[in-house]
């Protein structure tokens, strides 16, 4: 529990070939990280449509993490490059529409980077605690 009792919820869309395996490795290596993340496995970061991120954010997630293979390592060669452009666009659109782009993180985490996965979740959780709950979560009109 944080001081104000607020535990952020993170929805993580992880690619099957890198970040999901990295998350698994964090677990099998017994690396400690906050339990605030709910993982959804997709085949590739390039399969993350903006609507998944938006739905999560509007429906109660305090943050969304998209995890994919490092540039050059995508199993489908270019999915992560497309994901990167999509996130660049999404962040700009969230900014213009008065929403909070800081609640969306894209991170390249390979299958061997269990430690990096754990650190990312730890860091993101701390950041979201500092930001406070997403105003969308309680808003009846969303």
């Amino acid at each position, binding site marked *: 529990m944080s001081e104000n009792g607020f535990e952020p919820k993170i929805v993580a869309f992880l690619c099957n070939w890198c970040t999901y395996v990295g998350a698994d490795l964090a677990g099998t290596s017994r690396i400690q990280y906050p339990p605030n993340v709910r993982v959804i496995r997709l085949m590739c970061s390039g399969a993350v449509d903006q609507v998944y991120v938006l739905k999560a954010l509007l429906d109660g997630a305090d943050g969304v993490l998209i995890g994919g293979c490092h540039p*050059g390592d995508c199993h489908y060669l270019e999915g992560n*490059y497309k994901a990167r452009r999509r996130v660049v*666009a999404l962040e700009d659109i969230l900014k*213009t529409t008065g929403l909070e782009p800081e609640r969306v993180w894209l991170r390249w985490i390979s299958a061997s980077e269990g430690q990096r996965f754990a650190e990312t979740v730890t860091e993101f959780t701390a950041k979201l605690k500092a930001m406070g709950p997403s105003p969308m979560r309680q808003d*009846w009109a969303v």
Partner: protein
Amino acid sequence: MKTFVPVENGDTLQAVRGVLRRILESGQVEALMVPLRTPAGTVMPALVTDPALLDQADPLAPVYPVNAARALGWMTQREPRGRIGAVMRSCEMRAMIELVKLKQACVDCITLISVDCAGTYDVPVYLDAVAQPDNLLWPLLFDDPLASGSNGGPALRDACQMCERPVYDEAQVVVQLLGHDLAKGFSVVLPDEMAGALNWAPASDADGRRAMVDKLVAQRTARRDAVLCETRDKLNSGRPGEGLQTLFAACIRCHNCMTACPICYCKTCLFKGPVFDHDPIQYMTWAKRKGALRLPSDTMLFHLTRLNHMALSCIGCGACTSVCPVDIPVGRVFRAVGGNVQSVFDYVPGFNPQELLPLVAFQAEEWQEVGE
């Protein structure tokens, strides 16, 4: 090549029809897609193969029933296609080019015939005006496009008041009206071979069009900047999301804006399927969590999703605003968001059909800080 078309008895429309008839009769195209007058007094795009029906053509009518690019998509997306001459305004041309990039239309079999646009009215406004005995709507508009709305006439559509691309000189054929004394004549620019086939002779370049277009663009760009700045301020007021909600507070999620959008094309659009027919218990769960639930639900998701899917290609025709039953300035929001995100990718929609869409094109060496 540029040619001058003289107008007889002050009847500009008849002269424009004459140009179209020549193009169709010469076999340059198999059909023309052009607005025809309807018995109700307005116009609708029609695919015309019989030159006699061009007597009802009215590409000058300053009314915007629909963005015709979408219909052009239906007719060209798959083989077999015949050659169509598409008589459209700038914003319809630009929507068409975006549809080509989205693989929903093909330009190879289309001859784009652009007609200078001085701005348009919404259908009800237009019908009102043409019901007056001495309707002078469009001559007035073309005589002094800069004064439209302030000369006692009705206000142009919101999108037209801030349209910074009223002409489309990238079309194969350009019917140049702005800056001409339309009682006397106008110019047509067309490919040399076509001019040869039609026996049209070149005419002098000197007319007031460039100067008029520049003035019009300057006026409307200034208005655009002011309106979009105001819209962005509204979006960013209050707590996160409050501005967006306020703008869309009256939305009944009728999907008109999506249906009217010429480039929002997905046949498998998730808002058309059963995804949002939630289980009854889902509504109750939301209502319990939040204390209340706005109905219809998912309105913010609908608009944010469309913004993410389409704003990069938004060409600003404002068809969305025109069809909204509750007067939400949908087009302003799309342009405010689109303008920003398009500049992130240095992208101007609506011009080169070979150009890749920003979310399709990518380079390994870009935005390298993102994801690290």
